């Protein structure tokens, strides 16, 4: 009997293996009756989502019933989405959510922030699980077609360079032969090489796998220049021992338009979010004041027609079709302030996160790219 044990056991194991052979687990396509089928391709996994996609007016109704706006965001990115000492969600992206909540529900605190990872960003807005995705998302054509409706770019980021102030470098042409510290395996590396090659300049690449080594080596003086998205450079610079010794050059070598996203299918919600953003931008226009958090009520009480139009209390700016109150936009402004106040709060000269010159994020009246259609 003992002699039978080995062959018997082997046969049983073999049988089990052979039966397990066949279709690998996961990835089964299931047909479900839905009003609309969304095929989600995220990091390679194919799923069919069976949640009903929102149609016109659905999201607003759901938000009003729920009593809060659900935003997907970050809780760990300095300046854009992070937590303050009391654990309250703050940041540029978070404030955009608060503006929408103030416009729609009258209360900027009526938000719920859902932290998502980079891999989850797409699915979470595709399925309509959240109402707004405000998470440092770069607007690209593929994402626009697959993830949701991209509203309006609120932050024009791009790859930039950080150098020591005393190096005398002002642009790439001064960097011929310099050593550049960069993180490996990113588009940053490729853009760096392409930029220098196009200008016919040489550089020495000092490449590290992890970000902290990159900046550690830069601050030690191993390289003259470091490169990354400008907002990341600003956050790193803020954490240096002596931030004033370093300067972020005004050049941008790649396009990263950061834009809040809403789900496909509900044009009303799409319009609502966009118009709230327009108001924040238009309020900064010096022709209207500019209208700040503090002066909203003064303008409402005055007879400044232009200002009151921007605040939405003069004429029909579309609020009836959008299911909002006429003073929705004024509420939004009162909650977070105009674009410059919003920007300066976190990233201005006295910003609580770091300081990053607005550059392309200047108001169009100052030559920047921040521009919005009129409220009327």
């Amino acid at each position, binding site marked *: 009997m003992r*002699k*039978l044990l*080995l*062959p018997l056991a*082997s*046969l049983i*194991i*073999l049988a089990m*293996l*052979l039966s*397990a*052979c066949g279709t*690998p687990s996961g*990835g089964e396509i299931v047909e479900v009756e839905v009003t609309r089928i969304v095929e989600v391709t995220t990091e*390679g*996994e*194919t799923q069919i989502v069976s949640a009903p996609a929102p149609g016109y007016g659905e999201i607003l109704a759901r938000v009003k019933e729920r009593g809060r706006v659900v935003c997907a965001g970050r809780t760990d990115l300095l300046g854009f989405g992070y937590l303050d000492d009391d654990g309250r969600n703050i940041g540029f992206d978070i404030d955009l959510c608060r503006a929408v909540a103030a416009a729609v529900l009258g209360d900027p605190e009526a938000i719920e922030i859902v932290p998502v990872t980079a891999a989850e960003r797409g699915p979470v807005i595709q399925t309509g699980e959240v109402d707004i995705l405000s998470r440092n998302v770069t607007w690209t054509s593929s994402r626009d077609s697959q993830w949701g409706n991209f509203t309006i770019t609120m932050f024009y980021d791009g790859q930039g360079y950080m150098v020591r102030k005393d190096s005398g470098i002002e642009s790439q042409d001064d*960097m*011929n*032969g*310099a*050593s550049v510290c960069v993180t*490996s*395996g*990113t588009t940053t*590396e*490729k853009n*760096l*090489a*392409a930029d220098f*090659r196009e200008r016919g300049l040489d*550089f*020495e*690449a*000092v*490449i*590290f*796998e992890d970000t902290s*080594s990159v900046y*550690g*080596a830069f601050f*030690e*003086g*191993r390289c*003259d220049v470091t490169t990354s998205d400008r907002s990341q450079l600003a956050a790193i610079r803020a954490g240096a021992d002596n931030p004033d010794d370093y300067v972020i050059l005004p050049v941008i070598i790649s396009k990263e338009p950061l834009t809040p996203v809403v789900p496909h299918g509900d044009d009303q919600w799409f319009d609502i979010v966009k118009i709230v953003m327009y108001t924040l931008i238009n309020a900064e226009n010096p022709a209207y004041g500019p209208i700040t958090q503090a002066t909203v009520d003064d303008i409402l009480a005055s007879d400044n027609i232009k200002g009151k139009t921007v605040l939405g209390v003069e004429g029909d700016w579309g609020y009836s079709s959008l299911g909002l109150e006429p003073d929705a936009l004024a509420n939004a402004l009162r909650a977070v302030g105009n674009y410059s106040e919003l920007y300066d709060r976190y990233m201005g000269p006295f910003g609580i996160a770091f300081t990053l010159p607005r550059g392309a994020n200047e108001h169009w009246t100052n030559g920047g790219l921040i521009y919005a259609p009129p409220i009327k």
Partner: protein
Amino acid sequence: MASSTSHRKSQDRKSIPFWRDERVLTAAAQVISAIIVIGGLIWIGVNLLEAAEQRGLSLGFDFINDPAGFPISESVIPYDDSYPFGTAFLVGLLNTLKVSIIGILLATILGTLVGLARISTNWIVNKIALAYIELHRNIPLLVLLFIWYFAVFNKLPPAKGSLELPGPIYLNQRGLYLSWPRLTETGGVFAVSLLVGLILAIITWVYLRRLRERSGRSTYFAGASLAVILVSAVLGLALSAWQPLWIDTPVFEGFNFTGGLRLTPEFTALLVGLVMYTAAFIAEVVRAGIQAVDFGQMEAAKAVGLKPMQILGLVIIPQAMRVIIPPLISQFLNLTKNSSLALAIGYADVFNVGRIMINQAGRAVPVFGMVMVTYLALSLITSLIMNLYNRKILISERAT
């Protein structure tokens, strides 16, 4: 039961039922094990292919000729981001070879010295060697590399304030810049004639030594070989118009030194870390080998009247080599594979370049396949060479 079975076995060989026949059972077990292993591998392979197709991942190598698009910090051959992925991989491979070969040589030398120091009768030398060995065997290599790179090499003076040594040689946190002789246009002839002279000198040496052993006469094999080299050198100089070399000195331009021979801090930190780490292990291997030689050999050699260095060189070391070589091979392989930690300090070895390629080309499976095959090939070649040497030593031993 057992006795009746064996009784029946010895009586009735022809009619043992197959499920009790030992020969059948052992054969069946092997066949079944083979089926299980191969079946498992096939299942993994099929799973991989299906999953890749499902996710739209390509498993081909067609990306090899696409432009890489990323820079590499140092390269033995010319390279920039417009070269194809295949060239980038080659750059990484050459960098790995560079650090591995130099590392193996230096680690062997240092390890042998430390190993000999460890069995020295001089108390201080012995204890210093012990401290060195214990320190480097107990600290993880990654930690050592970080210490060498971030705590030592990064703290050297900045480029503008480099230490200047006679040569001129410049030392700063961006590297060690040496004045280096380089060949002129006519210098190629000089190099070739030197090489030819070296080969002829080796042949002369070997021939004259064997002649001495056979005939017993003294042939001046050392002098003859030296003469051959000198003649070929003079001939080479003459052919290259007496100007075969020029000295490339490093000059500071803009941000960095250009010219000369440059050793980057990444390469140097990796080399120093690997050498010191592996030398500690090699030291213990050498010590084990020497102590494995029978003490009687040492006594007999002393009785015969050999001096200590002669005892070591003629009696102890040749016998110790039998014990030293196999673990030494393992240490060489370890050094080669440990060089993949270059990733942590920014040296562009084959694993580092492979990872960048995966990110940029999106082909994880083919690139990792290439990296694994590379390390496998390096390891097999190293052990092949060393095993040949091993066999040669064994043959020259008296049969035991």
